[in-house]
């Protein structure tokens, strides 16, 4: 199995706050990898480092064998490494279909492709993915008026529209109705198997992550605490202590 993201010895501090210290992890191509840890353990900081939101203080981040730790957000996104946001970000003034169409992979277009109008295939793909996440009926509503959970689903569909090779999801089930969560787990898994997208997921909901991921990394206080299969992580005393605050 080949690795797609290779994080080695990454450190990041904000002033005196050490958000990540000497973190190393590997995401294998075609898998679902989980990242867990208590609040403030540096998960989102690590995601931001990987996708280029801020420079790292030390270490190396490789995507498909290429060093990306010095590249900008756009450059990394154009290599097919995409992220969704913890605070959902969609284009609120537009409707669902427009949100989807905007998310077409511009990295695969030159200016002449960009100056074409949308094709029938574009619309079909947008409708198909909106149906995939269960938003087809609301696709013509202003997406800013959708509920938070629906906006999360829309953001996920937009990410799929962009045809990424690897998708970083920051708490995909936060704020989603518990009855919808099972459906979402199913969709994330299908995105992985049907579209062949490698997923790297931050998640607080243990049931979700234990059901999905093949490998799980656990951060605490900005350092890597444990790694392993869901079973190993669930039975790891250090992880249990970190989550229950038994320090």
């Amino acid at each position, binding site marked *: 199995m080949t690795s797609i993201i290779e994080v080695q010895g990454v450190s990041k501090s904000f002033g005196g706050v050490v958000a990540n210290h000497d973190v190393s992890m590997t995401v294998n191509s075609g898998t679902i990898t989980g990242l867990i840890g208590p609040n403030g353990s540096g998960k989102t900081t690590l995601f931001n480092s990987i*996708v280029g939101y801020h420079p790292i203080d030390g270490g190396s981040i490789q995507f498909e064998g290429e060093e990306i730790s010095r590249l900008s957000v756009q450059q990394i*996104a154009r290599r097919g490494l*995409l992220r969704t946001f913890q605070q959902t970000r969609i*284009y609120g003034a537009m409707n669902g279909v427009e949100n989807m169409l905007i998310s077409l992979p511009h990295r695969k277009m030159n200016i002449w492709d960009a100056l074409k*109008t*949308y094709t029938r295939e574009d619309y079909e793909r947008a409708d198909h993915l909106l149906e995939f996440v269960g938003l087809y009926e609301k696709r013509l509503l*202003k997406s800013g008026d959708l509920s938070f959970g629906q906006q999360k689903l829309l953001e996920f569909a937009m990410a799929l529209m*962009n045809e990424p090779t690897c998708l970083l999801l920051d708490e995909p089930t936060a704020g989603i109705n518990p009855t919808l969560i099972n459906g979402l787990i199913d969709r994330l898994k299908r995105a992985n198997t049907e579209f062949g997208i490698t997923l790297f997921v931050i998640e607080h909901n243990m049931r979700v992550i234990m059901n999905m991921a093949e490998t799980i990394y656990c951060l605490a206080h900005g350092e890597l605490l444990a790694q392993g299969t869901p079973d190993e992580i669930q039975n790891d005393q250090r992880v249990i202590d970190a989550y229950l605050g038994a320090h």
Partner: protein
Amino acid sequence: MNMARNKTILYALILAFTFISPFAFPDFGTQLATLWLMIIVALTWDMTGGQMGYNSLGNIFFYGTGMYVAALISIGMVYDVGDYTNAAGGGIYKFTDLQYFGGLALGVLGAGLFCSITAVVIGYLTFGLRGPYFAIGTLGVAIAAGELVSNWDWVGGGQGIALPVYPGDLDTGKIFFYFLFAAVGVGTFLFAKWLYGTRFGAAINAIRDDEEKADAMGIHTLRYKLYTWAMAAFFVGMAGGISAFQLIHFEPLESAYQTINLGIFMVVCVLLGGKGTLWGPVIGAILFHLFKEVTWNYLLGWQWVALGALIVVTVVYFQDGVMGWLVHKRPEWFGIKVEKKVAEQAK
């Protein structure tokens, strides 16, 4: 289908009115030409301001630069520019019909192209600025350009440039310039209509709504911003070029780089009609132009107060403009609705 037919009829009526109006209202020939100029600058301002979220106060730079470039090209093709601008009424410079119309055509086209290029250069320097900083930054460019040009003797300095007069009779000239503006105006409208329907158009909307998200989705944000401004500058530059010939004489601060007049009017037009819509700038330009002409005629002495009041009322109480108000009142006209799946309805 009925909707599509209504639209065709509407477009046909507008086009017919465009052709007939200068003959039907010969006394208003220049006014109607100016209306088209307003429509052009409003539509192009909305390309960046409304559709892309970059409120430029410096688009007047392209208007003024377009004037100068068109004038310099048409003069330079026949005479030495330095001698011509230095003549101050002393020398006699004649232009044949071919030289006049050839110079006008090449000058206007050249003005558009030159402004596109300068938009890319200025955009490269200013598109790092956001919100009010971009507005002030671009305003600074326009003001600085006006001051620089008015101190540049080769292009006539503060006196500006006097161009040759239209070779035919005066009334034909008015109609000629009306149709030049109308052609560029219709062209600008059709171009914008097409552009907003493309993937590119959607991408600049994405930049307006959340540029960081657009970055994260891999959209070439800076490149698209530069292209958009270059497209807008092309049409403004051409409009400026035509204005130069229409006005015959222009000078840098009051007519070319007129930041407080046309430079602000174009923004007010768009706000009045509705930002970020195709028809908003057109409707806004018409309303604004009517308002301006009426107050300038019947409220003379108070016209600037009336104009200021209009701006304040628009900005404070009517931010979404006519089109925004319509979208709010009649969302179904714009296709905003819940749509049940066809398959489910069939069951």
